[in-house]
């Protein structure tokens, strides 16, 4: 019986259990609901939970444990000659046995017996059934594959039997508990609370998953390339993962990527911060409600546009525009119509990313500026300061910690941004200070190293995880510090 059918059966049993429990509690109440401690629905749910939850748990464990056991047993059934060749050979043989096993199921009786007594070629017989073998099959594989098939079938029956048994036993146990004074609601609510806790622990699990997966993969990378070389190397030249090259052939220097990342983020912030901040000040302090209620959502549309669209915008509009305008300027100045801004460059990526960041800066700062107490503002205006003086001398200093926090949050976004830089910044990892030349970033290189055919043993692929953990640590640091500042600031004025 297939797993999905089994799941369906469990649900059906659960439904039956629900109605059975409900009916029983109604019967016990003797027609007066007030005799019951819990409503009939809770009794029904209680029985249904007992019927479904243990069965589902058994099913889940079985699905994880059984393949491990079957693999182990099949491995043990392989002949000693294979066993003695070590892990990789056993793994290979196991894979072949499994595909043979899949093929055997499609054979007719005569073909099977021909295979068993060795008169037919394994590979060609299976190939005629559409099962391709990686190598020439060995005779022992047929017996092991049959063993494997027998175990799979037995496993499936055992699993079905066990799960159904547990479901029915659970249901019967629970239905016997149903009584007028039985606290079914409390039991059901305890299960619900448990599931709420499980749901909220997923957030923790995600973080643990991120850190653990990246650390383990990055750890494998650092066994091939020394951390010192990675963190302080000034050359990024990973080469290709050539077959047979074995170890680290390229150079994996983080610094050029980090320089590009920070440079582009800096240009983006240089563009976004003044515009965003002034927009926020104007909207918080000057704008009438009508302007505010149209301009603010419109600016926030910029935050809702997917970054791939910004990348495209950089690619077809901003990049070519900067290239052409620089050629014109150069031509006017020197007579040589040669562009000095490349289409893919630090400024292109920086400006487009800056546009994306404007709404982040403006709405975060807007929130913080409006949180400054009215009394501060009124006091300053009452003393005769103009509005701009109030903003500059009173509101901004009061809001400064919060704004710094907002800017740090924005910066962490700029550092982690991917699609814009993939399309607009270029792929050349260089350390230079000319903003009109292309540079590349950590995120671009993660994408570059991980698209295409992958082999998870080469440093060329694993370096992406080392880059990822670096990125994660940088943004995490920025976020934690920013959230700390913003939180502290909020408490100050609450």
């Amino acid at each position, binding site marked *: 019986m297939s797993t999905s059918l089994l799941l369906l059966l469990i649900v059906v049993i659960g439904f039956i259990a629900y109605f059975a429990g409900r009916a029983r509690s109604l019967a016990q109440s003797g027609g007066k609901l007030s005799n019951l401690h819990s409503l009939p629905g809770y009794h029904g749910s209680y029985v249904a939970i007992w019927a479904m939850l243990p069965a589902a748990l058994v099913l889940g464990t079985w699905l994880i444990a059984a393949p491990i056991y079957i693999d182990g047993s099949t491995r043990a059934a392989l002949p000693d000659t294979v066993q003695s060749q070590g892990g990789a050979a056993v793994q290979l043989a196991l894979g072949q046995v499994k595909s043979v096993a899949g093929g055997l199921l499609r054979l007719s009786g005569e073909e099977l017996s021909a295979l068993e007594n060795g008169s037919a070629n394994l590979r060609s017989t299976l190939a005629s059934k559409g099962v391709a073998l990686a190598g020439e099959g060995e005779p022992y594989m047929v017996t092991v594959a049959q063993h494997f098939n027998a175990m799979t079938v037995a496993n499936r029956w055992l699993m079905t039997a066990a799960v159904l048994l547990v479901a029915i036993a659970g249901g019967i146990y629970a239905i016997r508990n149903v009584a007028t004074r039985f606290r079914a609601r409390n039991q059901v609510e305890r299960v619900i609370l448990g599931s709420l806790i499980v749901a909220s622990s997923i957030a923790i699990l995600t973080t643990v998953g991120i850190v653990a997966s990246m650390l383990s993969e990055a750890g494998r990378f650092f066994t091939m390339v020394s951390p010192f070389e990675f963190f302080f190397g000034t050359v990024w030249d990973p080469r290709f993962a050539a077959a047979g090259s074995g170890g680290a052939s390229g150079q994996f220097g983080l610094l050029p990527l980090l320089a590009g990342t920070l440079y582009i983020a800096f240009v983006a912030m240089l563009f976004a911060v003044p515009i965003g901040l002034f927009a926020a000040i104007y909207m918080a302090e000057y704008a009438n409600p009508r302007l505010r209620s149209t301009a603010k959502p419109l600016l926030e549309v910029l935050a809702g546009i997917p970054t*791939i669209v910004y990348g495209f915008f950089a690619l077809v509009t901003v990049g070519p525009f900067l290239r052409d305008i620089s050629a014109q300027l150069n031509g006017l100045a020197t007579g040589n119509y040669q562009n000095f801004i490349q289409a893919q460059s630090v400024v292109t990526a920086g400006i487009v990313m800056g546009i994306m960041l404007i709404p982040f800066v403006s709405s975060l700062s807007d929130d913080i500026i409006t949180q400054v107490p009215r009394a501060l503002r009124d006091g300053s205006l009452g003393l005769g300061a*103009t509005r*701009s003086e109030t903003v500059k001398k009173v509101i901004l200093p009061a809001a400064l910690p919060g704004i710094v926090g907002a800017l740090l949050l924005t910066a962490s976004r700029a550092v982690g941004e991917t699609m814009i830089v993939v399309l607009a910044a270029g792929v050349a990892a260089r350390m230079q200070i000319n903003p009109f030349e292309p540079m590349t970033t950590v995120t671009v290189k993660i994408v570059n190293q991980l698209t295409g055919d992958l082999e998870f043993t080469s440093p060329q692929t694993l370096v992406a995880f080392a880059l990822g953990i670096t990125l994660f640590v940088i943004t995490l640091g920025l976020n934690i510090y920013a959230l700390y500042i913003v939180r502290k600031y909020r408490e100050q004025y609450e």
Partner: protein
Amino acid sequence: MTDIASPTVRISARPASAKRDIGIKRRYAAERRFRAYGIAAISIGLFFLALLLWTVISNGYTAFQQTTITLPIEFTEKVIDPKGERTTDGKVLMTANYPLLVREALVKQLGIDASKRPLVKQATDMVSASSRTLLRDLVVADPSIIGKTVPVTLLAEANIDSAYKGQIDLKVEESKRKVKDQQVTWMNQLAEAGVLKKSFNTGIFTFGASSRPEAAGVGVAALGSFYMMLIVLVLSLPIGVAASIYLEEFAPKNRLTDLIEVNINNLAAVPSIVYGLLGLAVFINFAGMPRSAAVVGGFVLTLMTLPTIIIATRAALKAVPPSIRSAALGLGASKMQTIFHHVLPLAMPGILTGTIIGLAHALGETAPLLLIGMVAFVVDYPGSPMEPSTALPVQIYMWANEAERAFVERTSGAIIILLIFLVIMNLGAILLRRRFERRW
């Protein structure tokens, strides 16, 4: 402006106050400058928004039209099945020389001398190479068509399409452009005969990936995105709501819940590409799920969307006044009943708004999907989330990397489709908020 300027005039008119110069003129000038900066900042932001949208729309609206050529194709048996084996050998119909049919029809239509090879080649280049599969599918679906002459609408080749839409500058020297003068003459000739015309491009909505712009569409990618959104919705809404209920209503105030809280805020700000790395390492490498499958993409986007939904849900739960809770508890409801029967329904509009915004964000996300192998050339509709598929923004990314002019148009068209989806979702969220939002 006048009300600011007038006191300045008055002050300078009185000589007595000139002694105590508090720099009012300078200060008001600074005030005006400051205001101007603010207006300029907002205008710059809005200008870039307009420029962005204009770029996309002006490049992309033409993608919704496609030039087609309707030719009477003669399905001659001699070409399709010269040996008369189609009833016995199924491969005959699949591998027949269909382009020849197109060529013959075109030669006839244009009246070219069939022996002039380069001329004939130029003519056949005007029709998309996808015609081959189109004719094949026609014949395979209905073999009785063989021997008849049927008018078939074929896609024009991308460059002809661009030329007919007026996007190719025909004043450029002939050798420097992809459309030859002869082809332009033919194009105009066909257009006058009513054979070649522009029509609404349904292909961009239904086709899959293709290396030929005229046969490329977002249909397959949109289905992949749809699968992922479904998975995200089904997983992240219940989990997110459950987690926020626990954190907001039940969790004791201690170190652990504090940690979870900080954690969720941080997860919301983790770069999306990191989620891609997580998906690659955990779902594909460790759990052995298939690469390029929508199900993995759905899981990754779920993890990414969860913090957004949790934060929105907690805010919505917080906004329900405590008096509701007290009233329910006072009438004898259990805490669980209070929350599920009273608080949650009242918080629902806020929760759904947050969910839609999270979904819209997930729909436009590209970077994590690149890492889990969804940068795939997928031609056929994926039958299930387990099959290789691609997503709308990834399709846009792949097209953006193509050099051809016609792909810029397609990319913009795809972006317009994506933006329309996003606008619909966000409008839904706004309407929901307007319709159901309550001020307590």
